[in-house]
C-alpha cells in the first residue's frame, strides 16, 4: 500500500513537471527570502536564452537579468509573506533574448506548503490573440476618431460655408430689395422658388406664393401667358422684353424679361418692370399726337388741330392750303367729322384734270341729253352731299365758268343741273384745298376774286413735312403699324440708321411720300427691322447727293417751279422718277409742268 502511494506521488510529480514544460512555465522556489531562487523540475526551452543555461536544482538571481522582475519581487513580497491572499501576477512584460527575439512573459508569486514559489510563464497564443484583438480595437478607435474628426471638420467647414452663403445671400437679397428689382425665380416646373418684395408688391400678392406655379400668380391674358411660357422654354438674354397687361384690381403694364439661371439650366429668372406710367404717358401722347387720321405732335400741327376744332364749330367755307402730300383731304375729313355735319355725307372731288363740262356735270349734275353721252338724269356731288360736306381739292385748277357756278352755290346755296333751268337748294358745306397761291392766280386772272373771298372765309395752312421733322418718327411708326396690319408682315422696327435718313431727307412729297417710302421699305424688308438699305433710293441717296438746305422750299409759285426743275434734274429728266421724288402722280406732274411752261423733251 505504501509502495502504491509512493508510486502515485512520483507519477503526480512527473505529471506536474511535464505540465509546466508543456505550459512553457519555469518554476522557481525562493531561497531564504532573498531574490535568489532555486530552479525546480524541468526548465522550459526558452529559459536559457534569457536567464542562462543553469539547470535544476541550481540557484539563480533572475532579477539581475530583468529589471521588471526585480521590481515585481518587491510587490510579490506581499504574497510570499502571506500578507496578500492567493496569487500575485506581474502582468505581461517583454524581454529580448540573446538573439534579439522578443518574448512575452508573465510572473506569478505564490506560496504552496510554506514554500515561496515564482512561476515565470511564456505567454503564447492566447496572449497574441488578446494583443491582436486589442490592436484591432485601438486601430478601430483611431479610425473612428479620425472619421469623427474629419466629419467634424467637414461639418465645421460646411457650416462656415453655409453661414457665408447665407450671409452672401442676405447681402444680395438686401441689394436686390434695395434696388427694387421685381424678380421671380422658377424651377423646372415653373414653380416659384423666390419672389422679391418688389415683385410681390407689383403683382398685388399679399401672401407668400413660393411653391405655386407662376401662371397661378400672374393675372394676365392667355396670350400673354402663352408668350411667357414660350420664353420660359427658350429663354435668351438678347430677347426684347415681353409686354403684358396685368389684369388685377390695379391693372398694370409690365415688361417681362426671362433669363436662364446662371447655374441651373432648368431654372428661370423673371424680371418685371412696371411700365404702366410709360404706357399711360404714351397713350396721352398718342391721343395728343393724333387728331382723327392726322398724326403729329409738332407745335405747328397742334396749332392746326386747334384751328380745325375751332373751324368745325362754325359752318364757314374753308380754304386748306399746303404742298402736295401734306394731308389736306385728311384735314377736310377732320373738319367734317368734328362738325355738326358729321352724320351727313362727306364727298371729296379732285377738280384738276377735268374739262369744263365734265367737271360741271360732276359737281352739279345734269339733265338727260344735256350733252353728248348724258343718257340719263344725274345728280351732282353737291346734291349727293346734301346735309354734309363737299371737299374740292385742287380748286385752283377749276375753269372760270365752273368757278361762276361754284360762286352761286356758295352765295345762294343752290345748284342748277346742266341742261336744267331751275335751281335746286342744297345744304352743303364747302371745304376747298389747293397747292396754288390763289392770290397769284387772281392776279393772273385765272381765279375769280369774289370766289377767293368766298372760299377763304376760314383758312388753314398745312406745314410741309420738312418744317415738322419732329413728327417724322411718329408718322413713320404709324405708317409702319398700318403696313404691318395690311401686309401681315412682322416688320415692327426702324433701325437708327434708317431713321436718321428719314429725318434728313427733304420730303418734297411730304407725308404721302413718307408713307410710300415706309411701304416700299416694308415690302423689301427681310427681317423685323427696316434698315437703311430697305429705303427707296432717293432717300438713301439724299444724304450724299442733296444738301438738306436745297429742299428748304418756300411756297411761292416761283419756288415751286424751281422745285419741279430740281426734281427733274435729280431724276435725270425721268418724269416718273421726278413725280415719285415729289410724291405726286405723273398726271399731276405733267399738269404742273404745263402750268409753269416747263417743257421736257421725251
Amino acid at each position, binding site marked *: 500500500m505504501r509502495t502504491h502511494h509512493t508510486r502515485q506521488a512520483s507519477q503526480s510529480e512527473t505529471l506536474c513537471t511535464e505540465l509546466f514544460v508543456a505550459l512553457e512555465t519555469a518554476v522557481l522556489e525562493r531561497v531564504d527570502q532573498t531574490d535568489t531562487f532555486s530552479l525546480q523540475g524541468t526548465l522550459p526551452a526558452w529559459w536559457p536564452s534569457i536567464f542562462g543555461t543553469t539547470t535544476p536544482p541550481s540557484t539563480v538571481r533572475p532579477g539581475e537579468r*530583468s*529589471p*521588471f522582475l526585480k*521590481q*515585481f519581487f*518587491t*510587490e510579490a513580497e506581499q504574497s510570499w509573506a502571506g500578507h496578500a491572499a492567493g496569487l500575485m501576477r506581474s*502582468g*505581461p*512584460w*517583454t524581454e529580448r533574448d540573446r538573439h534579439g527575439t*522578443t518574448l*512575452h512573459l*508573465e510572473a506569478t508569486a505564490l506560496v504552496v506548503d510554506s514554500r515561496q514559489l515564482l512561476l515565470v510563464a511564456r505567454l503564447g497564443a492566447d*496572449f497574441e490573440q*488578446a*494583443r491582436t484583438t*486589442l*490592436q484591432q*480595437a*485601438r*486601430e478601430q*478607435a*483611431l479610425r473612428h*476618431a479620425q472619421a469623427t*474628426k474629419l466629419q467634424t471638420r467637414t461639418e465645421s467647414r460646411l457650416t462656415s460655408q453655409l453661414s457665408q452663403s447665407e450671409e452672401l445671400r442676405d447681402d444680395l437679397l438686401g441689394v436686390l430689395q434695395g434696388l427694387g428689382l421685381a424678380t421671380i425665380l422658377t424651377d423646372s416646373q415653373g414653380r416659384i422658388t423666390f419672389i422679391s418684395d418688389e415683385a410681390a408688391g407689383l403683382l398685388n400678392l399679399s401672401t407668400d406664393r413660393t411653391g405655386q406655379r407662376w401662371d397661378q400668380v400672374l393675372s394676365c391674358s392667355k396670350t400673354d401667358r402663352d408668350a411667357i411660357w414660350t420664353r420660359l422654354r427658350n429663354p435668351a438674354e438678347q430677347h426684347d422684353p415681353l409686354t403684358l397687361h396685368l389684369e388685377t384690381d390695379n391693372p398694370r403694364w409690365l415688361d417681362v424679361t426671362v433669363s436662364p439661371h446662371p447655374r441651373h439650366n432648368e431654372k428661370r429668372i423673371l424680371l418685371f418692370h412696371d411700365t404702366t406710367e410709360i404706357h399711360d404717358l404714351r397713350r396721352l401722347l398718342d391721343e395728343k399726337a393724333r387728331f382723327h387720321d392726322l398724326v403729329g405732335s409738332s407745335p405747328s400741327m397742334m396749332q392746326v388741330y386747334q384751328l380745325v376744332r375751332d373751324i368745325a364749330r362754325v359752318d364757314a367755307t374753308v380754304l386748306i392750303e399746303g404742298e402736295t402730300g401734306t394731308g389736306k383731304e385728311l384735314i377736310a375729313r377732320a373738319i367734317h367729322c368734328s362738325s355738326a355735319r358729321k352724320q351727313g355725307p362727306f364727298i371729296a372731288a379732285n377738280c384738276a384734270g377735268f374739262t369744263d363740262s365734265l367737271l360741271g356735270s360732276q359737281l352739279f349734275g345734269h339733265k338727260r341729253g344735256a350733252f353728248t353721252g348724258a343718257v340719263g338724269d344725274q345728280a351732282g356731288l353737291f346734291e349727293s352731299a346734301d346735309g354734309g360736306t363737299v371737299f374740292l381739292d385742287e380748286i385752283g385748277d377749276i375753269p372760270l365758268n365752273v368757278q361762276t357756278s361754284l360762286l352761286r352755290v356758295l352765295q345762294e346755296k343752290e345748284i342748277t343741273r346742266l341742261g336744267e333751268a331751275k335751281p335746286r337748294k342744297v345744304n352743303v358745306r364747302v371745304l376747298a384745298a389747293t397747292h396754288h397761291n390763289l392770290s397769284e392766280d387772281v392776279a393772273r386772272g385765272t381765279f375769280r376774286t369774289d370766289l377767293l373771298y368766298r372760299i377763304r372765309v376760314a383758312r388753314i395752312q398745312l406745314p410741309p413735312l420738312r418744317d415738322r421733322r419732329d413728327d417724322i418718327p411718329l408718322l413713320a411708326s404709324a405708317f409702319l403699324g398700318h403696313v404691318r396690319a395690311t401686309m401681315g408682315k412682322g416688320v415692327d422696327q426702324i433701325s437708327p440708321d434708317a431713321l436718321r435718313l428719314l429725318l434728313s431727307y427733304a420730303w418734297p412729297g411730304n407725308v404721302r411720300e413718307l408713307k410710300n417710302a415706309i411701304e416700299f421699305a416694308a415690302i423689301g424688308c427681310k427681317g423685323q427691322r427696316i434698315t437703311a438699305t430697305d429705303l427707296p433710293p432717293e432717300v438713301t441717296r439724299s444724304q450724299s447727293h442733296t444738301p438738306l438746305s436745297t429742299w428748304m422750299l418756300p411756297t411761292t409759285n416761283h419756288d415751286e417751279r424751281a422745285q419741279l426743275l430740281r426734281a427733274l434734274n435729280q431724276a435725270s429728266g425721268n418724269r416718273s422718277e421726278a413725280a415719285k421724288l415729289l410724291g405726286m402722280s405723273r398726271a399731276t406732274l405733267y399738269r404742273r409742268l404745263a402750268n409753269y411752261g416747263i417743257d421736257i423733251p421725251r
Partner: protein
Amino acid sequence: MMHKKICMLGGFAVGKTSLVRRFVTNLFSEQYHTTIGVTVEKKVLSVAGEDVTLMLWDLYGDDEFQRIRESYLRGSSGYILVVDGTRKETLATALGLQQTVEGLLGPIPFALIVNKSDVRDVWEIDDAALSELRQQGWTIFFGSAKTGEGVESLFSTLADRLLKQAT
C-alpha cells in the same frame, strides 16, 4: 554606474514605443504595434561627464482597455508624458496621468513631448494650452519619432535634471 528608471506615459498610439526605439536604436517604423504590458529598454547616456543608464519603462497606452498599474510606476526617477499633436484628447490623457503619478510618487522630474511634429499642419493642440502648462513650470518639447526631431534633447534634458536632483 547610476541607473535611472524613466516611465514613458501617455494615451495609446501617441508614439511612446517609437520615441524609445528612435532614442535607443535610432529606428522608426510607420506601422503601429500596440504595447501590452511593459517593455524595458536601457540606454547609457553620458551626462556632465558621468555615465548614467536610463531604464526606459515603455508602458502600455492608457485607455479604456488598459489602465496604468501603479506598481509599474514605483521606483521611477522621472517620467515622460507623450502627447500626439494631431489628437487633442491625448493631452487630456497626459494631464490625467501626470496627476496620477504625482499623487503616487510626488513631484519627481518629468517632461512632456508633443509628438508628430512632422505633421504639424494637422495638429489640433494649440500653443495656448501648452503655454499655460509652461507657466506652471512644465518642460515641453515638440518632436517627432519619425524624423528624430527633439528626441535626443528630450531624454538628455530629463537625464540631466535627474542627475542634478540626485546630487
